[in-house]
């Protein structure tokens, strides 16, 4: 497999022979994954259902811990340290590795309070500081202009695309290093989808972004590094231009030409 493979110390996220299973070993979701992600890059993971893309994402911020019967072997490193290490504070991990889900779930609070929730949890009380953080997060998520006049109205009145950008702002407000997105545009109309993709492209240099998508065309549009997962394996990884014009593996070619999906 052609991987843009930086060496250990340069990686933000690295999987070393990482396998993951559910149901006490009965269902194997990831097989001996070896993958390295550079800081300040945007990686799009594509693949059909059941390929393990979401499992990989949720292993990174240990959301899979919530499911009984999960197990793993191998290592999953963030800045060189195993996220499954004994001394890891999971809450802190999840702050450093933020996640945006397919379904935006704004809190039953105002837009301002939604974004301020994370910082407040970290102990920031000063109104001035919070104002700054909220404004910065909303601007970075490219939603500030739309909501600046109604920051204190309910977040649940926003449209789907706006709520998704709000979800992004919420994550940004706690100063993450890695941002994971699990099919963030799957429920959105094409216009909102494009705006989100645009936002991600702008963000990539400041964060490490991993995006999972069900739609190979989205991977092609975003023009980032692309990894193709199939049945729990990393089949191929490389820049979008390479993968889509000169795929090395037969399975990759079949996937992008639509032979299965």
């Amino acid at each position, binding site marked *: 497999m052609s991987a843009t493979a930086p060496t250990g110390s340069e990686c933000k996220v690295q999987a070393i022979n990482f396998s993951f299973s559910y149901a006490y070993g009965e269902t194997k979701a990831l097989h001996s994954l070896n993958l390295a992600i550079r800081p300040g890059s945007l990686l799009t993971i594509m693949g059909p259902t059941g390929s393990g893309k979401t499992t990989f994402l949720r292993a990174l*911020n240990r*959301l899979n811990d*919530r499911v*009984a019967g999960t197990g793993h072997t191998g290592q999953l490193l963030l800045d060189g340290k195993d996220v499954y290490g004994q001394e890891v504070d999971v*809450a*802190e991990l*999840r*702050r450093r590795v*933020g*996640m945006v*889900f*397919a*379904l*935006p*779930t704004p*809190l*039953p609070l105002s837009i301002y309070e939604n974004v301020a*929730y*994370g910082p407040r*949890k970290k102990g920031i009380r000063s109104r001035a500081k919070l104002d700054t953080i909220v404004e910065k997060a909303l601007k970075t998520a490219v939603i500030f202009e739309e909501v600046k006049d109604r920051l204190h109205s309910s977040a649940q009145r926003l449209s789907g695309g706006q709520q998704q950008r709000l*979800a992004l702002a*919420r*994550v940004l407000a*706690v100063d993450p290093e890695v941002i994971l997105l699990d099919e963030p545009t799957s429920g959105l109309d094409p216009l909102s989808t494009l705006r989100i993709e645009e936002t991600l492209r702008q963000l990539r240099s400041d964060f490490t972004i991993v995006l999972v998508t069900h739609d190979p065309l989205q991977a092609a549009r975003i023009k980032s590094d692309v990894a193709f997962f199939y049945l729990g394996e990393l089949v191929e990884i490389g820049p979008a231009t390479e993968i889509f014009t000169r795929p090395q593996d037969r399975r990759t070619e079949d996937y992008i030409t639509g032979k299965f999906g």
Partner: protein
Amino acid sequence: MRNKEKLVEILLTLIGLSSVTVLGLIILFIFKEGLPAFAQVGLWQFVTGTRWSPGKNLLGILPMIAGSFVVTAGALVVGLPLGLGCAIYLSEFATAKTAAILKPTIELLAGIPSVVFGFIGLTLMVPFIRNFFGGPGFSVLASALVLGIMILPTMVSVSYDALRAVPPVYREGMLALGSTDWQAVKMVVLPAARPGILAAAILAMGRAIGETMAVIMVAGNSTIIPTSFLDPVRTLTSNIALEMGYATGLHRQALFATGVVLFVIISILNLTARVVVRGKTR
């Protein structure tokens, strides 16, 4: 083939009609038997009169209305927080093994006949209240405690279902921000499950208002308006059950009239609850 369809349709229509009709007939019967009492005693006099003494032709059910309200409110104060807390624990915090043992146990509580609860209340709670708090022991407090425990299974089961129905992604959205489980529950899960939890509370309230046997055994059945938790009290349902055996003439009609009042109160409570639920889900 077509005939079989028609047959099933006819059968279902019959069944649907019969359940509605039975209910309608019961309501009609109660009203028919009870209305003469209103006519003779006077509706206002009946509902606000404070003396209930059929032997002396004094027919005022205000003490019993107050009794029903106070006892039901007490039961809700005991049972709602306990039930909701239990449901939250089972749904959000308990391990699968713990939940597998606890949940069926609680549901077993629902199968215990009310007379058993009344008996336990009589032999355990009444003396305890008498010794610790004073008063005769037969009291609003005893009734509230017994009823509160009796409505637990309803509250726990229905709330649990409401909580489980909240999609996992709601919780995960919060967790991914670094919040703890309880914060996720408080901020997202509970608000999302609110209609279901309110429905559970309404069901529990209905059970509490209607419970008769256990209340008769621990409430004391005095015909005074209760002014303290330790006062003995009589509810509308207890009134009917206690005196139904021997009532004749106007007295009997007055008991049916009590049934009418009960029916009206329950209808109002249910309607109000529905309106509140609908308002909150918007």
